[in-house]
């Protein structure tokens, strides 16, 4: 994942988190605000309803009082106060009067509580309403709820009583409205509000007793629990109910107990306030918030992408510069814009590459000088050995010529032999240096590494058990499933032979030479281990440096040539060693050796033998 992508992801996470937190906060705050608003609205509506209800009650009181004050009623009361008055003539009066005053219930009741005329129960004439004659200040009581017997069965009435007194006789006017769908329909309710009435006329909850302005409420059973609670303990309650799975169907109810004169529960008024408008408004706001948030997120996405690109552009330039430096382009410079940390970093990078370039130049020069010095030292060392015998031989010849001419011939023959021998040594030295300078290009071909290893071991078999030296035991651990590899077999053979010779040199007292082949990671591995004297860490570090040797007569070119061969095949070589335990060389070769440019190595014109040199 690129730095730009990471930065973009970080931006997006930060943006999403911010939007999420804000959205949740706004949602919760909005919902609370709506709930508070709904609650206030509901309470206001309930208060409005109660005012309407009170107005209705007062209206009933006024209408009943108007009937009592009417001349016909007073005349009826006067007539009834007379002894043996004929009350039957008034039996139908209540019906007409109730219609003219728009009352559902109207009873004219005599002094003894006997019904003289009844609108709702005309057949009940003569029967007594006992509670009406009990001492009571009906004017102060106003309207009240009571159960009324009608031809259709018991009903709930909002009633008022007015007394017409003639002499010492009373006539009672008992009138009111039926609490039911018509009463509910007559109430002026705000939009979204409705009133339900449960008539508590039966011992248990009866759905048919729950009515609204249109009659019995469908799904009235859903309210049974709340009404039953009210029946058990009459008090004001609020609750909310969802009629369907849709939250917009929710309706909050205020439950008001309707009590009779004795405090008995006669009914329950349920003032419902639909939550539909509020829920729909809340949904609209949430939808708008989601839309804005989505647009914000999209905008933030683009902005983050652009921002990440802009922020990481200097870093990418730095990375590109670093990559170029790693490829050896030491003169790489990055553009510096502004004065921020990235610009400072770019400046530091440029200074660093400048200094690195300068230091590398100095190092190359120093290494070059050191190499030349080393070469000169080596050459001097190598050439000094043959030169000294040459000088001594020539001086012996001069002395023999001057002091023993008779022996000169003999000395001359011996000396020329020595001179030729030393000159051969000089040629060999020159040839080795020449070979190192002219390393050939590998000529690739399919090679079975196991066969190569077996061939080399067989070649050295006679030397492992040579007379006069302690034996060396070769051990082969070869992976028979080893794939064929594309290498120059001659070069590889010489490199391995060089390592085997080094191992033999490292075991003057004999030991075990182990060769192991394995394959992994698309290549093959060769391990050559000895149980010799081992190397120090310092020696291991410098082991592959040209002209470095731990031997008395080595040129220091053997392992350098080995490393060069392995490297030319795209492989790598490493060494592990422990003083007194032994040394292991690990070679990894790819199945198909690439060139430095990623191309196959072109076959060399002709294989050049590499001298095997002991390290």
């Amino acid at each position, binding site marked *: 994942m690129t730095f730009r992508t990471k930065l973009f992801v970080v931006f997006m996470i930060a943006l999403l988190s911010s939007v999420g937190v804000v959205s949740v906060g706004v949602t919760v705050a909005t919902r609370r605000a709506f709930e508070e608003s709904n609650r206030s609205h509901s309470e206001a509506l309930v208060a409005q309803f109660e005012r309407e209800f009170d107005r209705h009650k007062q209206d009933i009181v006024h209408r009943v009082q108007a009937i009592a004050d009417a001349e016909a009623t007073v005349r009826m009361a006067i007539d009834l106060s007379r002894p043996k008055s004929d009350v*039957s003539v008034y039996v139908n009066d209540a019906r007409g009067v109730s219609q003219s005053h728009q009352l559902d219930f109207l009873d004219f009741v005599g002094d003894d509580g006997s019904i003289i005329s009844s609108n709702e129960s005309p057949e009940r004439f003569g029967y007594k309403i006992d509670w009406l004659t009990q001492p009571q200040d009906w004017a102060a009581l106003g309207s009240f709820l009571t159960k009324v017997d009608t031809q259709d069965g018991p009903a709930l009435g909002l009633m008022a009583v007015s007394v017409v007194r003639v002499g010492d006789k009373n006539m009672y006017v008992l009138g009111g409205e039926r609490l039911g769908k018509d009463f509910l329909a007559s109430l002026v309710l705000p939009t979204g509000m409705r009133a339900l009435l449960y008539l508590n006329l039966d011992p248990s909850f009866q759905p048919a007793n729950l009515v609204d302005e249109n009659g019995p409420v469908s799904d009235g059973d859903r309210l049974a629990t709340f009404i039953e609670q009210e029946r058990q303990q009459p008090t004001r309650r609020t609750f909310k109910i969802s009629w369907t799975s849709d939250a917009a169907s929710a309706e909050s109810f205020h439950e008001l107990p309707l009590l009779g004169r004795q405090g008995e529960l006669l009914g329950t008024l349920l003032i419902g306030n639909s939550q539909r408008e509020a829920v729909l408004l809340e949904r609209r706001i949430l939808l708008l918030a989601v839309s804005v948030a989505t647009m914000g997120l999209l905008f933030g996405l683009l902005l983050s992408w652009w921002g990440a690109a802009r922020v990481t552009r200097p870093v990418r330039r730095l990375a590109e510069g670093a990559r170029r430096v790693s490829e050896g382009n030491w003169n790489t410079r990055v553009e510096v814009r502004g004065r921020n940390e990235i610009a400072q970093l770019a400046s530091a990078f440029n200074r660093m590459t400048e200094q690195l370039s300068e230091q590398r130049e100095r190092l190359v020069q120093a290494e070059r000088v050191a190499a030349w010095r080393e070469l000169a030292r080596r050459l001097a060392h190598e050439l000094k050995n043959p030169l000294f015998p040459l000088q001594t031989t020539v001086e012996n010849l001069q002395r023999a010529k001057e002091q023993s001419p008779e022996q000169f011939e003999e000395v001359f023959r011996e000396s020329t032999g020595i001179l030729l021998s030393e000159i051969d040594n000089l040629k060999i030295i020159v040839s080795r240096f020449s070979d190192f300078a002219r390393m050939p290009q590998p000529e690739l071909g399919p090679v079975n590494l196991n066969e190569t290893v077996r061939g080399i071991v067989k070649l050295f078999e006679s030397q492992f058990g040579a007379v006069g030296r302690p034996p060396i035991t070769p051990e082969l651990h070869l992976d028979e499933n080893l794939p064929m590899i594309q290498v120059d077999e001659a070069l590889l053979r010489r490199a391995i032979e060089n390592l085997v010779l080094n191992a033999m040199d490292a075991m003057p007292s004999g030991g075990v030479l182990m060769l192991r082949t394995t394959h992994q990671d698309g290549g093959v591995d060769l391990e050559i281990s000895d149980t010799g004297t081992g190397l120090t860490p310092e020696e291991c570090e410098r082991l592959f440096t040209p002209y470095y040797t731990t031997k008395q007569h080595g040129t220091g070119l053997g392992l350098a040539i080995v490393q060069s061969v392995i490297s030319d095949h795209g492989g790598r070589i490493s060494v592990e060693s422990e003083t007194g335990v032994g040394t292991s060389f690990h070679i990894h070769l790819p199945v198909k050796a690439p060139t430095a440019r990623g191309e196959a190595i072109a076959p060399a014109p002709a294989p050049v033998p590499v001298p095997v040199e002991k390290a």
Partner: protein
Amino acid sequence: MSRRRAATSLALAAALIVAVHAEASHRPRMGGTLRFEIGASVNSLDPNAKPATFKEALARDEINWLLSETRKVITENEGAGAGGPFRVSDWEPGKRVVLVANENWPQGRPYLDSIEIQMARSAHDRLLDLDLDRADIVEIAPEEARRASERGVHVSVSQPDELLALVFLPSSEAADAEQQKIGEAVSRSIDRAAIVNFILQKEGEPAGGFLPQWSSGTAFLFSTATDPVAARNLWSEIGRSLKITLGYDASDSLEHSVAERISVDVRETGGAISVVPDGPAHSSKGEGARLVRLSMSSPNPREALAHFANELGPLAGAEFVAPPVDGGPQQIYDAERAMVNTYRVVPLVWLPRAYGLGPRVRDWKTPGPGEGWPFADVWLGDMK
């Protein structure tokens, strides 16, 4: 002197003119169409057709009486074959019938040329038509007679000769003894006096038996008083909760009011009656009952009782025994007592027939028991 004589002569002449004119105004006049409105709806004049309501049956009999004067023929034995005083001229079943005078009636052509009878008119419309002179005679419900009279309407009320009774329909659930207790409990629960005084506005009489006091003279022996204590005891003896359904003619406001009052009275004594319009025709489940109205077929108590026994017995599923033809008052009483004691039919009240008369109607004689509308003798005078 001559002036005094002249004045006296003028006064005598004027008195003579007034007397002649008065004589002329009381003399029956031929001609004219009498407009008569009734509440019932007669759909067929066939005596064998089954009427929908008791009121239809009564109205049909009245019309047929005008056409054949059957009952009069039977009672007066004047011979049949010549028809009645009127014959049908125009007939719209259930709505209207026009009768024209029978020129060949043996007892002489009626004074009226024709009678137009409007049927199925509501009580309110009938009184309104009478007030507006759109009708000459209208049928008035007994409970409206008093109020109409107070409004200035000339009301003619007959002797109470129509029995309103509660008939228990045959029941398969209750045993005879239990049925009797149920009937007695209901009978003792009902406040008949309240029905007469309040619902009928004192036009009528409480009925304890099947004959009115004026007919049998023994009606006082049948109690009409309510007895809530006895009724409660009877309901307790019955024990089980009963489901009594009381039907009535939905078009009859009087029956409705009486049925509701009975329901209240029975409920007050511990029973339960539910009131159902137009039902039940029979007792399919529980106890069924309905209100019926029957007219006395004759002022003769024996004949009237026999008529009631024949009509009500099959309806109640009881075998009422009519008094013997030659039976005396005791036999009539015994037969009536036997009918009452079954409690399958509970007599409630005796109803009169009431008519509102317009100003043109002359020589209207209130019909007696067993008599139909007396249009044969009615004539129309001038409007005043």
